[in-house]
């Protein structure tokens, strides 16, 4: 409704009501004539003036009430200009500060802060600026503003992190983050410009042209030469009591260092070594004593070098005893048993395989195991099928293969899937063409493409999740949720008769991952790179609480009930509490950040030159309509604000009105 609308104007007549009422009231307080003021003394409190002010305030509130009420019904909008008035004469300074791990080297970050402040000091009055931090991710610190004080304040809270900067990713992110405007852009990149931060493709470092405006690249280097550095690069538990540590050098001369080994924050061994200037130096610690369960292995190198953060590396070693798993078979000496046992016992976690002949099985024993393996689904009878169904319904898990005994089945027990009539022969093996790599049991399995399988012809039901399939669309691996448990069927044998899977390297990985998945073990990766994300969703499908290396909880109570992705910003050990227990996750900086070799000056010069040549001439921009002559104003509704103000006014009016009444009754 327009402001001159008749209904609006009629509503405004309401203003007359408080005016009329107050005119009547104020008549009471008119002056009274008196013969002389010779003998009068003014009241100590200017009661009349106060009362009059209250009257006026009360009247103003009441008039404001009517005005706001009427205005609220007109659904007013506010046309807000953009935060800063941008014209083609304006320069937009986009400042990107490298906050990656390498910026912790010596005083690089302080130099970076000084460089940013220098850029701000040199800005023209009409210029606008925005500030971003760049590491593994790009973050907006201050959006486009004309107030350089905002930047100055934000810099105080900025510090170097633990992430890895990739200039290609940085430019790619900036392309989507920088506000569009008609300004001339100056991209200030403040960084040490590590060689490892250079994008794989040079073209990835060229920013998109925004509205055809010229872009100038300003390179602010805070490192002028290659700084020598050594980093603890790898920690490997080779045997049950031996740890091999790899120290990588990025220097010109060898260095003498002391390497110490701490297990669960207790120093066990220390060794003096001469580190190679360039390359790996290995140090072996023998007779290491581990505690049962997760062990915190800290490898510390002293004295520290220019980049102290990578002189300490955190590693988690799981020293839990092998978990028992039952293997149901008709023949304990079969080839399939050999393959399955070998795969499970060599898995990183380590499993103790308990062989159980199906004919001697007491079904009640199943409840002792979180999951079981059946060599051939064709060997179980109807009663055992019922027992297994009950076991799975109650939360158990089963991995079964379909061996030669299953070839004669018309339907698969437990799953009740129909088996097709296509005859199986050794010559009819087909390759694997489809893998659901998002499934926890297949996430790290590679090499399925070389597997050839002769699978039972099955018609998967709606409840079945096909995880691996052949080129003829025959399912090879499928999963069904039954009650609280899971049932996985490998539609081929594990004895190398119908499939070559058991003899392929992928088989070991597959069995290890499937074992972890079906036993509900945590699937969290125990060693992560800083500023990556910890996906709690893969930890058994449910979330829990996470404590960072400083012991601070990262999730609110509400957040603990749902799957979360936790950003691992700090280095050290994160404690993850999930339904299946406590897990430690070690977080270290990206190894590439330890290489402090800087980019070649010529490369940086080329980068600047290429960026400067990307702007199109004004004429072309006008023709393709990328330059708009007028700025669009944002339309914002403000009637909610009016209603909010109305509530405040009603409260204020009530309070003031009551006070006024109290004064009146007190003087009569």
């Amino acid at each position, binding site marked *: 409704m327009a402001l001159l609308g008749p209904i609006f104007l009629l509503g405004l007549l309401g203003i007359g009501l408080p005016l009329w009422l107050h005119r009547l009231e104020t008549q009471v307080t008119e*002056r009274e004539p008196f013969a002389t003021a010779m003998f009068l003394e003014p009241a100590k409190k200017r009661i009349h003036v106060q009362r009059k002010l209250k009257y006026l305030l009360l009247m103003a509130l009441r008039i404001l009430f009517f005005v706001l009420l009427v205005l609220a019904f007109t659904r007013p909008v506010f046309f807000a200009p953009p935060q800063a008035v941008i014209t083609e004469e304006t320069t937009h300074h986009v400042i990107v500060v490298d906050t990656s791990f390498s910026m912790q080297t010596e005083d690089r970050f302080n130099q970076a802060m000084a460089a940013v402040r220098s850029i701000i000091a040199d800005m023209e009055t009409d210029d606008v600026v925005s500030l971003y931090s760049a590491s593994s991710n790009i973050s907006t610190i201050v959006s486009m503003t004309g107030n350089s004080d905002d930047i100055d304040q934000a810099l105080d809270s900025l510090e170097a992190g633990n992430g890895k900067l990739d200039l290609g990713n940085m430019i790619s992110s900036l392309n989507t983050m920088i506000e569009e405007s008609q300004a001339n852009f100056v991209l200030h990149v403040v960084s040490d410009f590590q060689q490892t931060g250079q994008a794989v493709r040079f073209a990835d470092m060229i920013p998109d042209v925004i509205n055809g405006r010229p872009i100038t690249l300003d390179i602010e280097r805070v490192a002028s030469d290659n700084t020598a550095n050594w980093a603890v690069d790898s920690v490997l538990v080779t045997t049950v009591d031996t740890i091999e540590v790899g120290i990588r050098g990025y220097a010109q001369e060898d260095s003498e260092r002391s390497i110490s080994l701490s297990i669960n924050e207790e120093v066990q061994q220390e060794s003096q070594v001469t580190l190679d200037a360039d390359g790996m130096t290995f140090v072996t610690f023998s007779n290491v004593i581990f505690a049962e369960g997760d062990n915190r292995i800290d490898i510390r190198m002293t004295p520290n070098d220019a980049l102290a953060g990578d002189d300490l590396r955190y590693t988690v070693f799981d020293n839990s005893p092998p978990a028992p798993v039952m293997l149901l078979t008709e023949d304990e000496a079969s080839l399939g048993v050999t393959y399955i046992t070998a795969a499970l016992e060599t898995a990183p976690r380590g499993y103790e395989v308990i062989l159980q002949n199906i004919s001697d099985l007491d079904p009640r024993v199943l409840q002792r195991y979180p999951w079981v393996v059946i060599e051939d689904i064709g060997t179980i009878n109807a009663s055992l099928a019922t027992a297994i169904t009950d076991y799975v319904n109650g939360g158990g898990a089963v991995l079964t293969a379909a061996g030669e005994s299953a070839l004669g089945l018309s339907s698969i027990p437990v799953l009740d899937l129909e088996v097709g009539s296509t005859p199986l022969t050794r010559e009819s093996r087909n390759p694997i063409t489809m893998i659901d790599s998002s499934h926890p049991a297949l996430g790290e399995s590679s090499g399925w493409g070389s597997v050839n399988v002769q699978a039972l012809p099955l018609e998967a039901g709606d409840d079945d999740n096909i995880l691996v399939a052949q080129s003829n669309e025959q399912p090879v691996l499928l999963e069904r949720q039954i009650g609280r448990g899971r049932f996985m069927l490998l539609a081929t044998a594990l004895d190398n008769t119908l499939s070559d899977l058991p003899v392929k390297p992928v088989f070991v990985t597959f069995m290890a991952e499937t074992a972890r998945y079906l036993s509900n073990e945590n699937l969290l990766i125990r060693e992560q790179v800083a500023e990556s994300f910890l996906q709690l969703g893969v930890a058994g499908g449910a979330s829990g609480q996470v404590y960072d290396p400083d012991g601070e909880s990262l999730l609110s109570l509400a957040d603990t009930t749902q799957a979360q992705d936790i950003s691992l910003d700090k280095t050290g050990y994160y404690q993850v509490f999930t339904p299946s227990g406590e897990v430690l996750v070690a977080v270290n900086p990206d190894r590439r950040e330890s290489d402090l070799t800087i980019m070649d000056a010529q490369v940086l010069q080329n980068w600047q030159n290429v960026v400067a040549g990307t702007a199109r001439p004004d004429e072309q921009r006008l023709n393709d309509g990328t330059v708009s002559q007028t700025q669009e104003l944002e339309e914002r509704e403000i009637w909610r604000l009016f209603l909010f103000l109305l509530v405040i006014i009603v409260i204020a009016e009530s309070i003031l009105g009551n006070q006024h009444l109290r004064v009146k009754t007190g003087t009569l």
Partner: protein
Amino acid sequence: MSTSSDNRPAPMRLLDPSVLGAMSNLELVAKAVVEGFVIGLHRSPKFGFSQEFVEYRQYADGDDPRYIDWNVYARSDRTVIKRFKGETNSHLMLLLDTSASMGFGSGDTSKLQYGKYLGASLAYLAARQHDAVGVMLFDNEVKEYRPPASKPGSLQGVIHTLDDAQASEGTDINQPMTRFREHIKKRGLVAVISDFYCDAQELMENIRPLALHGQDVIMFHLLDKDELTPEIKQSTLYEDMETGQAIEVEPAFMQKAYRDKIQKHIASIEEAANGIRADHILLDTSEPLDKALHNYLTFREKRG
């Protein structure tokens, strides 16, 4: 206000200012007041208005020729005036304050109106006793001046002058009194009708020369009931009628401190009057006029 319960005789009721307010003619008011007052006096042994012969005296300018005894003139060729008991053959000069403060009145009658009634009544009473009557209206200067005269029509002139008086400016007694002293030649009575909102010392300084000149001064101090005993129930913003100054006062102040102050002021005016042997008569404008007239006659009796 006159009510049915008022058992005074009708002429006496006319002394009540609220009754007089209904009369539009000031001369009629004066006549009614004085006649009513005289009727009351006839019951008093002290005062009499009988026409008992006392003496002859030499005719002087300004005397009413009607009172010349032509028989004496025929016998002795002397122009003499017959004097009767009750006559003083004096001059009465009415000085009426017409400052803005005189316009104040809480009831139907303002102080100025009361002053008019009083002045007219005094003039009528004086004329009845063959006194020459004059009038001067003043506020911070002389507004109107009629010298004392006993010629026919002079009473109507005085009453007419009084009737035209309007409350207007502030009070400054210094300038009008100076002018008055310049004009008054003969000894006589000077009746000052005012609310005397001025400094008592300054008032005395201005009245004293009159006394030294031989004038007998009577000061009618008119104050409204609300000026004497104000009653307010809540804080009130009062505006000075002369200066326009606004002052907010509290009920407690008007109840105590103000009354003390006004009484102290009245006392100081009375003291100043006593200092120059003038009579000071405080009149509440809500009260009947007989008190004023009675005081006037007493005063006149004393001064002979």
